[in-house]
């Protein structure tokens, strides 16, 4: 390495936001034709580092060199021109424009001063094909595409800019397993074409599969760089959290007796062509997981319970009594006491510009008010309890919730619902894009709530979570329950084989399918 000028180097980078130190004397060396994994908890400075590289924020101190020459970027456009392209965690697509419009948006092909639509179409089709997403029509509007397709468009858009350094910030978090493997092939091909790739992910297995080199960030600094594969998962996590990594999952209690009456029960739930005859039960004190590939109806099932879907077939029973849940406000009412922690906290969980206090009390306002007037003292007591219980890190209750880190925003969403002391808690992939430390806290909280008598239905795309947290797991495939795994049956192998609807040779006779 010594003597060779690296493709890109940053040294001594510092950045403060007000009093908060996001980066402190951080550095990074990027070489061509390699994939560089970046690891760290949320708030470790990864995102800020990337934003500095991509020209979104200007550093307070430090220097960057590209091909040995010092560079500064005044805007994302300037960084793009230098060949640094970033796929951001928050999608950067314009919803009302078409896929093709979006792919060429930074530098559309022009003819006589106007945008050349034919050339634009051609570029878009090439880029989509390169990203392995030829199934997306270039004229489709981005807002009509599901999240996973949008992410593919985002990747195609980045490729269309012919980058030298491509940064992927949690770029696979919304992708289906099939897309992830496609994207991995694309990334490996790009590496062989000489590109430098920075790959930021909370998913350790992805980093292990892809990266040549890894750098770990903690508290705004790069704390270690090592060749991929030279450290064990445990060592890496210890570097990330800076403390002993053990017992990330709380221990499970003895199984809830099967004779206990179910708190939540579904009988033959069907909806449109997305849910087919789903029957399940969740008892008080139980954590029941929903597994399977992404997009097999798990989200719809949770929405069905929460009264969001119209024209639902089948029956929902609460404490053995049939109920008709026609809207989320019915679902949360005292008789039912349901809470849904949504998948997309930014649109379905929080009102970002409003304060932490307001966000926390929204769902519980009816309980905190008398004759329409909010009891401020009661509100404050409850909020203090919640902030303490969930260890929410915030500079104050009256700052916009959008200013919090991702993990703390998610805690606010959960706290908001806990303020109603729900009896049934539905969680839709609550740990997506959240750091290890916060995840661990959430797992413990989930178990604590179950022990206190809540019935929990928990959808996760992360198999480790399902294995570590759940008493039972229902694996969905194409809108139907394919298999139920109980206790020790919940293994990675069983989860994957039933998610792919393969009858694994290890499926224990007589305990499996309930399909």
């Amino acid at each position: 390495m010594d003597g060779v000028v690296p493709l890109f180097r940053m040294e001594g980078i510092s950045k403060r936001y007000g009093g908060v130190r996001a980066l402190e004397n951080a550095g990074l060396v990027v070489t061509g034709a390699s994939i560089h994994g970046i690891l760290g908890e949320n708030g470790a400075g990864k995102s800020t580092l990337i934003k500095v590289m991509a020209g979104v924020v200007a550093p307070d101190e430090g220097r960057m060199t590209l091909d040995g020459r010092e560079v500064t970027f005044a805007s994302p456009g300037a960084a793009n021109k230098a060949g640094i392209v970033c796929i951001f965690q928050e999608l950067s697509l314009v919803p009302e424009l078409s896929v093709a419009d979006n792919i060429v948006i930074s530098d559309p092909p022009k003819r006589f001063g106007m945008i050349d639509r034919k050339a634009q179409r051609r570029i878009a089709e090439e880029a989509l094909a390169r990203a392995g997403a030829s199934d997306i029509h270039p004229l489709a509007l981005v807002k009509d595409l599901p999240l996973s397709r949008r992410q593919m468009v985002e990747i195609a858009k980045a490729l269309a800019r012919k980058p030298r350094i491509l940064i992927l910030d949690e770029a696979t978090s919304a992708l289906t397993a099939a897309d992830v493997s496609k994207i991995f092939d694309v990334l490996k091909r790009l590496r062989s074409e000489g590109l430098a790739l920075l790959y930021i992910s909370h998913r350790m297995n992805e980093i292990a599969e892809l990266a040549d080199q890894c750098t770990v960030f903690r508290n705004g600094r790069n704390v270690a760089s090592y060749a991929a594969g030279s450290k064990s998962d445990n060592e890496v996590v210890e570097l990330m959290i800076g403390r002993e990594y053990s017992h990330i999952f709380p221990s499970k209690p003895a199984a809830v007796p099967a004779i206990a009456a179910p708190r939540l029960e579904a009988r033959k739930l069907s909806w449109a062509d997305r849910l087919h005859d789903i029957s399940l039960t969740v008892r008080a004190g139980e954590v029941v997981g929903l597994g399977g590939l992404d997009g097999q109806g798990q989200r719809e099932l949770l929405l069905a319970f929460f009264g969001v879907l119209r024209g639902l077939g089948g029956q929902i029973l609460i404490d053995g009594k049939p109920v008709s849940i026609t809207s989320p406000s019915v679902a949360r009412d005292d008789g039912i006491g349901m809470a849904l922690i949504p998948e997309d906290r930014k649109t379905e969980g929080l009102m970002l510009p409003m304060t932490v206090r307001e966000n926390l009390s929204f769902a519980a306002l009816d309980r905190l008010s008398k004759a329409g007037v909010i009891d401020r003292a009661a509100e404050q007591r409850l909020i203090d309890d919640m902030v303490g219980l969930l260890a929410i890190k915030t500079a104050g209750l009256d700052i916009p919730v959008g200013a919090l880190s991702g993990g703390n925003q998610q805690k606010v969403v959960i706290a908001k619902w806990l303020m109603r002391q729900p009896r049934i808690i539905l969680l839709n992939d609550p740990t997506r894009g959240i750091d290890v430390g916060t995840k661990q806290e959430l797992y413990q909280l989930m178990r604590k709530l179950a022990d206190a008598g809540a019935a929990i239905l928990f959808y996760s795309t992360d198999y480790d979570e399902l294995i570590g947290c759940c008493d039972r797991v229902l694996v969905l495939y194409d809108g139907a329950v394919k298999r139920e795994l109980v206790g020790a049956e919940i293994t990675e192998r069983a989860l994957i084989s039933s998610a792919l609807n393969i009858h694994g040779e290890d499926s224990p006779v007589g305990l499996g399918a309930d399909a």
Partner: protein
Amino acid sequence: MKDWRYWLAEQRGTLLAFGIFIVMFAIYTSNHPAGFTANVVQTASNKGVLLAFVAMAQTLVVITAGIDLSIGMIFLLTNCLASWLVVGTPMQTTLGVIAVLAVGLLCGAINGAIVIYGRLQPIVATIATGAVYYGIGLLLRPFPGGSVNEDLADALTSRVFGVVPASLVVLLAVVLVIWVPFSRSVLGRAAYAAGSSETAAYMSGVPIRRGKFAAYTLAGLLAAIGGLFLTFFTYTGEAAYASGNAYTLFSIAAVVLGGVSLFGGKGSAIGAIFGALAFRTIGDLLFVFDFDPLWQPLFQGVILLVAVSLGAFALFRVRNRLEWFL
């Protein structure tokens, strides 16, 4: 293969406005004593283009997720100015027209600069600038009066080849010279992108500020073209406060009728033109059916509500309630 379906989905608002206008105009002409004659079309066109220009102007700003409440006042100000300047020899008249258009452009540019660089809310900024523009108009014409080059005025309000209304030809020319290039330029796309998702546009390195600035500035220019035509029809300038406000509000109605989303990022000035023409036809319909003109505001309101509801019908088919809010 199914490209046309995407095109159709994109143009749905425009086609709907076109349909509404055609139906209304057909009812109007078939009930008119004179029927579908060049004369009837010319009168309708001359009445319609004023609002059409102002609605086009409003569209440009609405696309950026803004709103221009000064648009009617720019229209009045340029009318007052034209009643001073668009007179005399052909040379003087030409210079006068250029000056009037330049003032419109300037008014729009001021709006844009305040909203974009001054970071004021478009509603507040344009209420304030609108009052200023009206004030200047009032200084120019404290009382109705003035004159205009009548040769030019008559030429632009008569018919070309005896059949096609000249005002319609000018409208078409303006669409081809201003709207089409704008909507297909990088700046136009930046305006759409800024209206749809400003952060995403910024992150993608889109020239948001220039796009929005161009939209506000061109809006001023289009309003000035409307102001010129008002002068050609009336031969005078008049700072009529109520009329300026009415044009501002009607332009918003026309934009909505034309399928332009007030949330920004979606719609076309062509749709807004048909929206404006349809809106104008309401008054004509009342006339042929012998209604008291007093009914006009009421009917305009009802038609607007019905037209906007058409777009909401799709919501009845939605089975996932979360999609209501998209």
